[in-house]
Each structure stands twice: as structure tokens, then as C-alpha cells.
């Protein structure tokens, strides 16, 4: 497997993702510049967190038009695995590869803290290693992670099983108190209909080592690796 980590101007969790994959999981990675147009050598593409173009107009709005995004769209349409983390999630939505939008946090404040996620779907490529209902502890770090979609879209997301993670309490309950940003229905991560593109606000790459507070994030990367191996077999 080979993972590409896309670097836009202003991206910062590129190095963290590379650390998690390479140093913790021993998976080869390569950084992909936003001007590149060819992802032919890759099996997994990560759009990491950060503030692409400063997030000045809208998170992800400008990054979405960089050359690499055409390649990412092609890659996704061919069934390649694409993971958007935080700013990467926002970029995928701007590019219409994922539904909905992310508004300012309801508190209007940035939030950096550990949260719990309930795995809602285990047939998404990024959760094949998880049980439905499993609770993962992973940090968030964002000012605009408040998931919004119109009622029609929401219903179809529910119906198609595209809601992959929801914010929950430590024992897996979906409550308003467990929702750190005001997201509709506590949605923390959604997939496309085909299940090969996932976007989530929390940062799994920050939860890969007990030394740093926990390693539940590994489940997401390992799932992708296993999903790919399965296809390859």
C-alpha cells in the first residue's frame, strides 16, 4: 500500500499523518503537492488538517480549486480511498465529493479536546476493523466543525448509512452534551455513497500512541490498510 498525503498551502497535519503512518504503522507515504496532477502510484489519499489558504474566505474554499483536486476527484471516482481530516473534510465538501457543509462551532470558539466517537457503520473502508457501536477516543481541533446538511440530504445520509461517526458520551450515548460543536445529529464524520471517501472533523493521527494520550485513531488507518489488502487479494 502507498499513501499520499496532500499538502496545500497552510496545511499542517501533513507531518502528523506521515508520522502516524510511517513511524507508528510502518506504511510508506509520500507527500503530494497541491500542484500535482497524477496520483497513479497511490492506494490511499489523505487530505490532512490545517488552515489551507488561511481558511480566510471559507474553510477549504480556495484549496478546492487547486490542480490536485481534479486528480483527487478522479481517484475517488475510480474507487480509490480518500480520507479527509478536519480541513481535509471541509475541502472534500467544498469539492462536492462529500455532502453537507461545516459551520462555525455553536460556541463560536475554537475547540481542542478529546472527544468520543461512536462508530455507526463498519462497512465503510475506514471502519472495517471496528464494531458498530464501538466508541473511539480521538481529539478534535477546529473552529468550524458544526455539520450541516438540509433535511433531505440528512435523511438520505441516514438511509444510505453514510453517517460513519457521531459524537457520543464515554458509554456511547448520543447526547447534546457530547456534541462539541453543534453538529446536526452529532455527526462527526460522513462517507460518500460508495463508502470509499470519508471526511471527519476529529484527528485520528493525533491518537496513535499511548504516550500522547491514546491510540484509538489507529483503528481508522488500520481499517483502510485492511480494506485495501482485501481488495488486492
Amino acid at each position, binding site marked *: 500500500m502507498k499513501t499520499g498525503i496532500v499538502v496545500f498551502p497552510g496545511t499542517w497535519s501533513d507531518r502528523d499523518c506521515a508520522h502516524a503512518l510511517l513511524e507508528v504503522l510502518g506504511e510508506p507515504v509520500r507527500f503530494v503537492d497541491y500542484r500535482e496532477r497524477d496520483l497513479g502510484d497511490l492506494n490511499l489519499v489523505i487530505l490532512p488538517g490545517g488552515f489551507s*489558504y*488561511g481558511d*480566510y*474566505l471559507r474553510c477549504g474554499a*480556495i484549496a478546492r*480549486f487547486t490542480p490536485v483536486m481534479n486528480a483527487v476527484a478522479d481517484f475517488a471516482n475510480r474507487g480509490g480511498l480518500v480520507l479527509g481530516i478536519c480541513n481535509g473534510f471541509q475541502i472534500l465538501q467544498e469539492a462536492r465529493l462529500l455532502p453537507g457543509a461545516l459551520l462555525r462551532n455553536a460556541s463560536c470558539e475554537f475547540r481542542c479536546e478529546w472527544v468520543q466517537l461512536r462508530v455507526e457503520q463498519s462497512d465503510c473502508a475506514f471502519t472495517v476493523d471496528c464494531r458498530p457501536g464501538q466508541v473511539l477516543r480521538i481529539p478534535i481541533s477546529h473552529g468550524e466543525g458544526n455539520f450541516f446538511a438540509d433535511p433531505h440530504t440528512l435523511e438520505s445520509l441516514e438511509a444510505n448509512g453514510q453517517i460513519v461517526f457521531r459524537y457520543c458520551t464515554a458509554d456511547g450515548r448520543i447526547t447534546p452534551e457530547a456534541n462539541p460543536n453543534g453538529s446536526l445529529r452529532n455527526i462527526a464524520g460522513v462517507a460518500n455513497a460508495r463508502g470509499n471517501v470519508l471526511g471527519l472533523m476529529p484527528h485520528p493521527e493525533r491518537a496513535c500512541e499511548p504516550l500522547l494520550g491514546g491510540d484509538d485513531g489507529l483503528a481508522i488507518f488500520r481499517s483502510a490498510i485492511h480494506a485495501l489488502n482485501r481488495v488486492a487479494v
Partner: protein
Amino acid sequence: MTYRAEVFVTLKPVVNDPAGLTIRGGLHALGFESVKDVRAGKYLSILLDEADEDQARSRVEEMARQLLANEVIEDFRIELQPEPALAESRGGGPS
């Protein structure tokens, strides 16, 4: 009487505007070469009850001065109209 005030807050011309510059760069990259300058600001639409238009205007000016803008780096402009058909005042509701 209910009024709708629109407040436009912009950075003073002498102040640098990173957001405006970055948006201009984004427009150029999209092929909108004719764009020479972009300044980014805030737009606030405020619904308020006041006795008359003068009073409404002077209240909104106070708000802008105290909270909505920082005159060290920002300018603001206010536009005001009466909001006629507002049956009921809905909290966070839209116009």
C-alpha cells in the same frame, strides 16, 4: 417600530488585509484575471425595535462603535430601513 440595520465593517484602507489578498489570489487562480483588488469585511444584519429612525440609527452607531467594529483598524457604514411586515419577533429566526 422595527428596523433592519445593515452594518458593513471593513478594514481601514491603510490596514493590510490578508483575507482580501488571499481571496484575490484565489480568484486569479480561477482565471478571474480582471480582479485588481479585494477587500474582505463583515456584513451584519440587525433587527431592532426603536421609537423612530433617528433613534434606531444612533443606537446602531453606538453598537458599531462599542462592539461591531474596532475603529483602530476598521471603518463601518450603516444602512437602515423600517422592517414593515414583521408579524412577530422570532428569536434566532431569519428575516
